[in-house]
């Protein structure tokens, strides 16, 4: 069985940051592997270690700068990676779900995996829709917000979806399928030094839109990011100032007033 894992390098923001137009200023932005994708990679690698998957391929949409992040997937056990980038993508400040569906759908069709694992959402833009959209576009089955996967695959896979309010849904999904993976499904490993060294030698192919047979117009976003701002706080919070002993003592007084620990 072949598993394709979609991974994304996401922007992360410090406590203090600046906004320039409709983006976070570069100086305020760090990058990291999307947390949800880390769990998806781990799930794929565990399926490979269990002898269920023969090959794990990671795919990302991103500029050359993100290769270091994507190599984390290789260092953790993916066999090879594909990076898709194009000037037409670089021009967009919000790659919407439709555009990502075109790109990732083309990769799925090329690779023809039995299973596609994606994170439930990306830490930065939080759309949470690409996995299901890609599944529908390529005619795969799907399940969103999966937090447990049975290690038995036939023509179908049994899994659990994490619903709201501490309820899980037990579902069977036919293969091939796209599953969006929720955090907590496993314990993502740290890349070992050996893994990191090996990752440098693993294949990281680069493809542009033409190579994927995608017309530039089809990835033009239908959404336009028009504003970005810090939300106005409506808070009327009372902030206690001073050293830890002073603030703890203020809080202790409040708790006593509320009848706590008496």
């Amino acid at each position: 069985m072949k598993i394709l894992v979609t991974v994304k390098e996401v922007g992360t923001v410090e406590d203090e940051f600046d906004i320039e137009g409709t983006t976070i200023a570069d100086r305020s932005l760090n990058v990291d592997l999307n947390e949800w994708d880390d769990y998806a990679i781990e799930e794929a690698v565990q399926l490979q270690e269990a002898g269920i998957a023969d090959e794990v391929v990671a795919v990302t949409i991103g500029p050359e700068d993100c290769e270091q992040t994507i190599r984390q997937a290789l260092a953790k056990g993916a066999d090879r990676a594909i990076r898709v980038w194009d000037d037409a993508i670089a021009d967009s400040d919000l790659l919407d779900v439709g555009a990502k569906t075109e790109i990732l759908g083309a990769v799925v069709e090329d690779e023809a995996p039995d299973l596609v694992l994606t994170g439930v959402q990306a830490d930065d833009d939080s759309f949470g829709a690409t996995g299901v959209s890609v599944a529908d576009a390529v005619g795969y089955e799907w399940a969103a917000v999966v937090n447990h996967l049975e290690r038995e695959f036939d023509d179908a896979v049994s899994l659990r979806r994490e619903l709201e309010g501490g309820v899980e849904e037990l579902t069977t999904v036919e293969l091939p399928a796209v599953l969006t993976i929720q955090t907590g499904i496993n314990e993502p490993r740290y890349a070992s030094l050996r893994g990191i060294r090996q990752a440098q030698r693993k294949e990281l192919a680069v493809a542009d839109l033409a190579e994927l047979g995608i017309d530039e117009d089809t990835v033009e976003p239908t959404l336009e990011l028009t504003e970005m701002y810090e939300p106005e706080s409506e808070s009327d919070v009372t902030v206690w100032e001073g050293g830890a002993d002073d603030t703890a003592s203020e809080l202790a007084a409040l708790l006593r007033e509320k009848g706590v620990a008496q």
Partner: protein
Amino acid sequence: MTDVLVVAEHRRGEVRDASYEVITAGRELAAETGGELHVAVISGTVDGFAEKCNRDGVDAVHTVDHGEEFNHGVYSQTVTKLFDELAPQYVLVPNSVNGLDYAPAVANRLGLPIVTDTIDLESDGDALTATREMYGGKVETTVALEGEAVVTIRGAEWPAAEGTGDATVESFDPEIDESALGSNVTGFEEVAGGDVDISDAEVLVSVGRGIDEEENLEIIRDLADALGATVSSSRPIVDNGWLPKNRQVGQSGKVVTPDVYIAIGISGAVQHVAGMKGSDTIVAINTDPNAPIMDIADYAIHDDLFDVVPALTAEFQ
């Protein structure tokens, strides 16, 4: 093409509150576009659900009597066909686990843009402006699009629709392609049970990602012991296996309403806030003065939890 179609959500025989909130969002949007508000109820006891969803401002309810529980194949086929039939401008769906399990497929099939997790919407009848958060709630953004769209609505951002409407209730009977239904719900399980029910606690000492290491939970337990409180947590602590699922506060965990909720090293992601905002008094201990938890906290200490928590424990020993 100015109408709004809302798709209601239900589980195990009950219409979920999110449905009524989306009806409110739909009603506001329909007022802006000058169109009608349609509501779809799909699967389950649809006539009963239709009665409940017939709230003020709803013009029509469409019932689709097919299967008992949610099946994303049935929902995506049905909503696509309803869209073809009604030609609405916007399809609104709760931004729930199930909403995100079919709305993207509907958008893909109809070739429409999808905007998820929206917290505000405005339309002039053609252009839609949607407000949503990025970077874990640190920024708000507006996105604009022209024409029709599928939009998912964040919970608790709009009030639940009330009152009784005078909607027409019509049965819609699309031909469902059974061979295309490749997923099957086989059951449900409550997973947040166990020895402690945090939803009964009067005082919760709740810990988040800021605690850094599992060993550090000891200072949280010490504080809870000193206060006679119960320990709860945000999602990452449970994901890491440091506390069991029955301690998780939030959308996918428990909803809690204690007298006092002390949020320690919790930034306040929307999923967490959904589970604890009904607490009587909320105290936040967090180094980041801009953390979203500060927006709902009554009292706050902007300091290192590793300094404040032991000092607080000492006050009660």
